[in-house]
């Protein structure tokens, strides 16, 4: 994070006083984390872009209600969660499989082609398994592993306590592991 919380709250007060151009800084800082978060929750890139845009517009509209006692990123991600969850409610079925081209940049260049292929397969399996999880576990896992929030921050973002976050992380990981092993077993039987 290039800016501290005090600097961000200074930006917000300047925006509220009428200098709208400062909102650009906030968008530039948070656009990638918010997009990645929404993308992992929803699973569709174009829709995720739209929802990230909607999130930022909502943030701008309700900037006057932001309480400086709280962390700005938690407040912003809370808005992102509400927007993406309302989207999921409207559109029940989840898109599977993921769009192509995403996996290529994360495969490590070293390793034999078979290894690369296997890596590719496991990553796509994990992505599919993540999308099949219940949304509350998915939210916690994405905030934890993609946005790298601490348990405390996740609890503040989702408006629960730390104990709750921990149990949902535990259960989410358990379900993920179960679905992955199921996948692996199925493959083994097929071969």
């Amino acid at each position, binding site marked *: 994070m290039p800016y501290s919380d005090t600097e961000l709250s200074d930006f917000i007060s300047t925006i509220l006083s009428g200098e709208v151009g400062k909102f*650009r800084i906030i968008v530039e800082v948070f656009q990638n984390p918010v997009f990645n978060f929404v993308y992992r929750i929803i699973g569709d890139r174009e829709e995720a872009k739209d929802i990230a*845009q909607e999130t930022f517009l909502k943030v701008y509209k309700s900037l006057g209600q932001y309480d400086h006692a709280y962390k700005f990123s938690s407040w912003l991600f809370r808005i992102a969660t509400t927007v993406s969850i309302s989207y999921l409610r409207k559109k029940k079925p989840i898109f599977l499989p993921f769009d192509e081209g995403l996996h290529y940049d994360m495969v490590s260049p070293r390793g034999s082609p078979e290894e690369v292929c296997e890596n590719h397969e496991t990553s796509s399996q994990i992505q599919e398994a993540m999308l099949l999880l219940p949304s509350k576990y998915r939210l916690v896992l994405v905030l934890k592993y993609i946005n790298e929030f601490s348990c405390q921050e996740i609890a503040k973002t989702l408006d629960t306590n730390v104990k709750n976050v921990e149990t949902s992380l535990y259960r989410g990981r358990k379900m993920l592991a179960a679905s992955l092993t199921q996948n692996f077993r199925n493959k083994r039987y097929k071969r």
Partner: protein
Amino acid sequence: MKCSTIKTYCDRYLNKELDDFTFQLIRKHLSTCPTCMAFFQNSMILADLIKKSLSLESLSSDFTDQIMQAVENLPVPQADVYLSFPNVSEYPNFNYRPISPNWEKGWTSCRLWRDLWFTLGNYSHEYYLKSSLNNLRGERNAG
């Protein structure tokens, strides 16, 4: 601590978010319990796998431009009045509420009744004291 409670602390332990006492407690438990150790290692591996497989993407500056264009058409947000409300402790008599004059109008709580209850209370207390004193005296006299 039980194994089940240790498992719930897993994430905070791996992120070092715990206080020193709990951290040492879990560390001690892990050195003796192989199943918990295996659980912690598995969850670490899974976390690494998730982090590796879900790569981060970056958006272009077109996205920012689009948002800023949309924002310029919107009205400037206004600061919420309720958030800028001064602190309650600034008012010394905040909890003071004067009794409304209606208190004396109702027949159950009129001034007359109130005086009556007061006097009864006072006198009953006095009578009780007097009678108990008399009793004591009587007992003494009898003794």
